[in-house]
C-alpha cells in the first residue's frame, strides 16, 4: 500500500515535471510566433502569408489634385455646401412664414374690418348709427354751438378726463363706438341731461363729446380708429 502510494506519487511528479517544460515551450511559441509560422501549424490559409507586415498603405497619389491652391475640387465642395445651405434656409423661411401667415387675419375678416361712409349724406346736427365689426358706431355731425360746448367744458374734473380735441380729428365729426362703457347697452342719441347720449339700461349720461358725466359708467364712449382719406369720406377701422 505505501509502495503503491510512492509509485503513484513518483509518476505524478514525473508527469508534472515532464509536462511543465512543454507547456512553457508552447507558451513561448504562442507569444513569439509570427504570421509566417502560422501556416505551418494551421490549416487556414492566410492571405497575408509570406509578408513581413500586414499593414500596407496604398498610394492615393493618382487621385490627389496636383493644385496647391484652394480652387478646384475644394471650390466645388464649398459651392455645394453653400447651395445646400441656401436651399435649407429657403425651406426654413417658407415654413416659418406659413405658420405666421396662418395666424394672421384672413381676407374675409380684413374685408369686414373697415367701413367707408359718405359724410355728405349726414346733415348738420344729426346722428347716424352704422354697424362696424358687429358693433354700433355713432357718427355725429356737430353744430357750431355743440362744438363750442364740448370744447368749453371743464374736462379736468370729469370722471374720465379727456379733452374734446383728444376725441375728435375734425371738430364737426364726432365718431365713437355706441357701446355704453358700463354694461354694453347702446345709448340713445340726443338725450340725457347733457345734450348727448343717454343709456336707458342704468342711466348713464354722456355729453356731446361722448364723455361720461353722470351715472354708473366708468369711462367715456370709446373712439375707434378712423381716418378721412378725402373730403366727405370717413373710413372706420
Amino acid at each position, binding site marked *: 500500500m505505501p509502495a503503491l502510494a510512492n509509485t503513484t506519487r513518483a509518476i505524478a511528479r514525473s508527469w508534472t515535471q515532464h509536462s511543465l517544460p512543454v507547456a512553457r515551450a508552447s507558451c513561448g511559441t504562442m507569444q513569439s510566433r509570427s504570421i509566417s509560422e502560422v501556416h505551418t501549424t494551421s490549416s487556414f490559409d492566410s492571405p497575408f502569408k509570406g509578408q513581413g507586415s500586414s499593414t500596407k498603405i496604398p498610394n492615393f497619389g493618382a487621385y490627389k489634385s496636383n493644385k496647391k491652391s484652394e480652387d478646384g475640387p475644394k471650390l466645388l465642395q464649398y459651392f455645394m455646401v*453653400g447651395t445646400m445651405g*441656401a*436651399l435649407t434656409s429657403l425651406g426654413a423661411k417658407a415654413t416659418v412664414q406659413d405658420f405666421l401667415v396662418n395666424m394672421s387675419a384672413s381676407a374675409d375678416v380684413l374685408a369686414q374690418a373697415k367701413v367707408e361712409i359718405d359724410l355728405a349724406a349726414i346733415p348738420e346736427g344729426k346722428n347716424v348709427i352704422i354697424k362696424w365689426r358687429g358693433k354700433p358706431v355713432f357718427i355725429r355731425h356737430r353744430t357750431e354751438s355743440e362744438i363750442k360746448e364740448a370744447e368749453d367744458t371743464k374736462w379736468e374734473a370729469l370722471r374720465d378726463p379727456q379733452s374734446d380735441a383728444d376725441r375728435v380729428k375734425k371738430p364737426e365729426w364726432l365718431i365713437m363706438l355706441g357701446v355704453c362703457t358700463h354694461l354694453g347697452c347702446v345709448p340713445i342719441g340726443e338725450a340725457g341731461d347733457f345734450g348727448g347720449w343717454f343709456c336707458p339700461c342704468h342711466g348713464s349720461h354722456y355729453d356731446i363729446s361722448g364723455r361720461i358725466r353722470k351715472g354708473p359708467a366708468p369711462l367715456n364712449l370709446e373712439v375707434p380708429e378712423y381716418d378721412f382719406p378725402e373730403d366727405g369720406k370717413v373710413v372706420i377701422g
Partner: protein
Amino acid sequence: MSSFTSFLYNSIFRRNTTMLATVFAGAFAMQLAFDTGSDRVWDSINRGRQWKDIKYKYIQKAEDDGDDDE
C-alpha cells in the same frame, strides 16, 4: 478659368461672413426666381380661365351700366 475660380474663392468662400451673406442672398434670389417662375407657369397653364384674363369683359359692362363700383 483659374483666375475666375481664385477670384470666386477669394471674394466669397474665404471669409465665413461673406459666405453666409452670399448664401442668404442666394436664398432670397432663389425664392424670387421660384415664385415668379411658378406663377408664370401657372398663368400659362390656366390662360383664359382666370379673373384677370376675363376681367375686361365685366368691367366694361359695369361702366356701360353706370358708375358702379368695381
